[in-house]
């Protein structure tokens, strides 16, 4: 059963009944779920969670939907891997990678979309929609197929072919919109206002949708043996993921499932789209919007909706930071994770690893402190960012050509040296 009792405005506190709405009619502030934590406290326990399904739905008591009718394609309970090789490289002795790139559509977006689509069905919608440049499109299309809903995916007309196919294969109506980013953004916002019969996952379903990211926080805590990490390194696009991981861990503490959370939250952006990092450096709570120019397109949100709440956490949780790194270091981060831990991540993961490296070099991590880096998408989604790194040795189909062209001993030697 769902313990979500109402919606409330994060700014003025006005309450609303559970409905497909996302802004306060009084002050236009964003709406968030109100939970009955007393009732959840009576219902939940570590044992109950452990006995739950091996998916994000083991935390159904803390989600704003009825888990019995979940639209589930097997999302969550992704591996938390001890990253000793990368840790050695960076000088971090207790490093973990939360590999959310292995979700069904290869990104963490499956978590948020699973909640949004489940809730959309509860509300009686038969049409699902989103605007995306990649990960979200695939997740919405896949869940729309599973839920047997009419699904509309709006994309910019210049989107790479691979990303279009990554959504189109699930059978949605794909609409390629001519115009720049702002044009597509404005159109989708207007369409969402004009078509109240659609469940637009990150617009009118946003209060429910965003709660899915909490499950990343729950999982890491459970996988670390019911303990929040000392440090979390999280990519920032809208800022929602950062705030919800923090919220999820603190909900566990509030319910007595773990001790107080002392995690230092580290937000990671690309230099080419770093409004939150810039505001943090300036000790501000409001960002100056930017026009994104980075290879980390899944993080390219120039005016992040949850920037204020992200900055509040970063300023209030002692020792937290928000930083950014340039594109070449993002590529190096992708390469470093692949070559040390065997995990191929997209550019957002490169942002996380390059910022992790920067934090390590700045001496942010003390010996023994647990550090979790959140990898949120698969590298096959952004191969264009690293295609220049693939330089095979071309040979003829003869043994002599192989022996003339390849020095296997040297290759093995260089690998041993670097690792």
């Amino acid at each position, binding site marked *: 059963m769902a313990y979500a009792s109402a919606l409330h405005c994060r700014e003025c506190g006005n309450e609303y009944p559970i409905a497909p709405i996302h802004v306060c009619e009084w002050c236009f502030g964003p709406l968030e779920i109100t939970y009955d934590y007393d009732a959840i406290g009576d219902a939940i326990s570590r044992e109950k969670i452990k006995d739950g399904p091996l998916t994000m739905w083991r935390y159904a008591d803390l989600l704003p939907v009825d888990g019995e009718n979940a639209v589930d394609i097997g999302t969550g309970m992704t591996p938390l891997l001890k990253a000793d090789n990368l840790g050695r490289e960076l000088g971090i002795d207790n490093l973990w990678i939360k590999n959310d790139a292995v979700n069904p559509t290869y990104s963490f977006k499956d978590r948020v979309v699973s909640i949004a689509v489940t809730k959309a069905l509860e509300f009686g919608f038969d049409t699902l929609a989103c605007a995306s440049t990649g990960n979200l499109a695939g997740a919405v299309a896949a869940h729309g197929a599973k839920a047997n809903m009419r699904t509309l995916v709006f994309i910019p007309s210049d989107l790479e072919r691979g990303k279009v196919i990554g959504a189109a294969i699930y059978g949605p109506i794909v609409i390629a919109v001519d115009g720049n980013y702002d044009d597509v*953004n*404005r159109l989708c916002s207007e369409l*969402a206002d004009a078509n109240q019969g659609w469940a637009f996952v990150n617009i009118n379903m946003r209060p429910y949708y965003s709660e899915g990211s909490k499950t990343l926080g729950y999982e890491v805590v459970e996988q670390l043996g019911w303990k929040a990490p000392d440090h979390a390194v999280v990519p920032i696009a809208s800022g929602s993921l950062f705030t919800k991981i923090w919220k999820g861990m603190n909900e566990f503490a509030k319910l007595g499932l773990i001790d107080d959370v002392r995690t230092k939250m580290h937000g990671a952006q690309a230099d080419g789209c770093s409004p939150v990092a810039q505001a943090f450096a*300036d000790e501000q709570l409001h960002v100056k919007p930017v026009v994104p120019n980075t290879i980390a397109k899944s993080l390219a949100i120039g005016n992040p909706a949850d920037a204020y709440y992200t900055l509040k956490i970063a300023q209030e949780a002692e020792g937290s930071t928000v930083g950014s790194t340039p594109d070449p270091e993002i590529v190096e981060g992708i390469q470093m994770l692949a070559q040390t831990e065997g995990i191929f991540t997209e550019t957002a993961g490169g942002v996380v690893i390059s910022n992790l490296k920067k934090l390590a070099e700045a001496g942010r991590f003390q010996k023994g402190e647990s550090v979790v880096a959140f990898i949120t998408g698969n590298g096959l989604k952004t191969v264009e960012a690293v295609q220049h790194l693939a330089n095979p040795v071309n040979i003829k189909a003869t043994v002599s050509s192989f022996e003339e062209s390849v020095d296997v001993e040297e290759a093995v030697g260089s690998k041993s040296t670097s690792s």
Partner: protein
Amino acid sequence: MAIRRVRLTFEGEQITDPVIYQLGKDFEIITNIRRAEVHAHVGWVILELDGAEAEIDMALAWAAGKGVRVDPLSGDVIEG
């Protein structure tokens, strides 16, 4: 007639410009401030605009032309 909700962001010297006054004066629209915050380096206002579609479009294009950032209330809805 239409009602549109937008978020305007001002930076630097734009903060001291009477943009909202001019929106109401120079265009056939009613401006209604619902929430706002102004700091030394940046300011924003969430605004409800009431008027003909074309007039609202012209008013917002004028504001954008002055360098004010105009976003839908929902912010950036295109996600990666």
